[in-house]
């Protein structure tokens, strides 16, 4: 992705003045470390935090909706097809188009961004949750039923814990995808780390969008790593390959 942006920028007009700063900044060098150091605290960090918020809220709300839908579909089979169709449809809409489509309804706003981002998480989260629930070994449920578990106890003490690895796998994909997609939300003014990427591209200032891009990638890797650790802590019975 960074490569693509670089080539786009290379083709674009070069604006000569990048303000005060070192020679590197004034001449739009390949990568100016001093600019990063000078601007990290007041330019990049707030955007990064904003990006984490955007992602966390989208994944959180998406998780809640997908969770309820998956529980319903697990109980009432007919729910599965319409919800899958709906979330798959949303998933196929190009992200820029979806952001743009929401602008007349909810404005150039954070709300529009969140609605779109939530929409993109649903398919992955729902599918993984439902598959996880349906792949719980039948004999464990049979035994639980015969031992006098209520339906609710079977769900919370047997089915959901056993579906956890699949649910966490879905959560990882959804989180990484959302971090990446949320950069485009800056297009409709929702902020986030996408903002310095867009700014940098517009100004043709390499260091800015490269740094912001690297931050987005790093954020995705760190989030994924944390979720892997959480999964291992929550599902210690799963034998992980070494």
């Amino acid at each position, binding site marked *: 992705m960074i490569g693509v942006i670089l080539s786009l920028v290379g083709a674009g007009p070069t604006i000569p003045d990048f303000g005060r700063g070192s020679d590197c900044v004034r001449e739009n060098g390949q990568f100016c470390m001093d600019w990063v150091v000078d601007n990290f605290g007041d330019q990049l960090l707030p955007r990064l935090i904003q990006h984490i918020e955007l992602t966390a809220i989208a994944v959180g709300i998406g998780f809640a909706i997908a969770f309820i839908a998956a529980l319903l579909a697990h109980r009432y089979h007919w729910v599965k097809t319409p919800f899958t169709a709906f979330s798959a449809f949303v998933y196929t809409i190009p992200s820029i188009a979806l952001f743009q489509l929401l602008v007349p309804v909810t404005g150039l706003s954070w709300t529009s961004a969140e609605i779109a981002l939530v929409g993109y998480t649903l398919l992955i989260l729902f599918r993984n949750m439902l598959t996880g629930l349906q792949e719980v*070994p039948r004999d464990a449920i049979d035994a639980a039923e015969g031992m*006098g578990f209520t339906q609710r*106890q079977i769900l919370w003490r047997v089915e959901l814990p056993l579906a956890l690895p699949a649910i966490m796998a879905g959560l990882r994909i959804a989180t990484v995808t959302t971090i990446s997609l949320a950069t485009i939300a800056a297009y409709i003014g929702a902020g986030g780390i996408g903002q310095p990427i867009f700014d940098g591209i517009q100004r043709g200032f390499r260091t800015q969008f490269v740094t912001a891009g690297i931050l987005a990638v790093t954020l995705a890797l760190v989030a994924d790593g944390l979720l892997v650790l959480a999964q291992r802590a929550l599902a210690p019975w799963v*034998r992980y390959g070494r």
Partner: protein
Amino acid sequence: MVREGRGKAPAAEIVFDHVWHHYPGRAVAAIQDLSLTIPAGEICVLIGPSGGGKTTALKMVNRLIPISKGDITIDGRSVQAMDVIELRRGIGYVIQQVGLFPHMRVEDNIATTPRLLGWPDAEIRTRVRELIELVGLDPDEHARTYPSKLSGGQRQRVGLARAMAADPPLMLMDEPFGAIDPITRERLQDDFLRLHQTIRKTVIFVTHDIDEAIKMGDRIAILRPGGLLAHYDTPENILAKPADDFVARFVGADRGLKRLSLRTLREIALLDAPPDSERPGLPSASEGTKVSDALSIMLTSGNPSLLVTDDEGTVRGLVTIDLITALLSTAERSGVP
């Protein structure tokens, strides 16, 4: 063979009283007019060809399958009058696939029912260790492992411990050793019989293996297709006098041999042993040997008699094929009502 309940909780008497089960949408009933009484503390084996409804009959006791007509009582209380969750928590349940919870350690699997019943933690901990030892595992080695680390035989041992955890007066066992290799199965059968001597629960045990039925059952109920009771009696009586052709075919043409497998040489009045000079070449076996095995030794050695020794190897006497034949015919006569 009536046994006295000696476990902590008394064993329960189970009565099937004209029980029927119709699967919805099927013309033929799965269980028809099944009536039998299982005395407290006994192992009752349900057996029959597939489609005989043995598992259906078992699952009607804890109401995993509904009773269409008739009733089943546990110590006089109708299972249909009880709260279904409470009913199931009061019955030990063991299935072929074991059904251990993969996400719980062995100790937590075993603690399942006591926790559902709200036992205090300290009591549960002691009980779990006691049970792990009771089923022949090592608490220090196995308590904190996950089921995926155990062998098939060990898993079924944990399944047994889990079913016995809350000391239920009744245990339902649905082909518990069916998926286990023959050698391990035999050890599990022996261990369970030994265990049963001490716990004296009432056990309903489903199997499709007639040898297992004969070995495990104090009584055997043979069901024919359509869920009709063909014969309900002790293994000895069923083998000696099958109720009809179906039962005779089901227990097999070797039912005479199977009866001999229920007895040991100790139960035979032996002939005097021949003098030492005539002993060389005679096969020998200890008193604890099954009569069927002794017969097999005679047949393979080509000798119609066999020296019987005690466990130290001292010769106690001589047994002959004639004596064994006589054993079968006297038992046959006494088996006639």
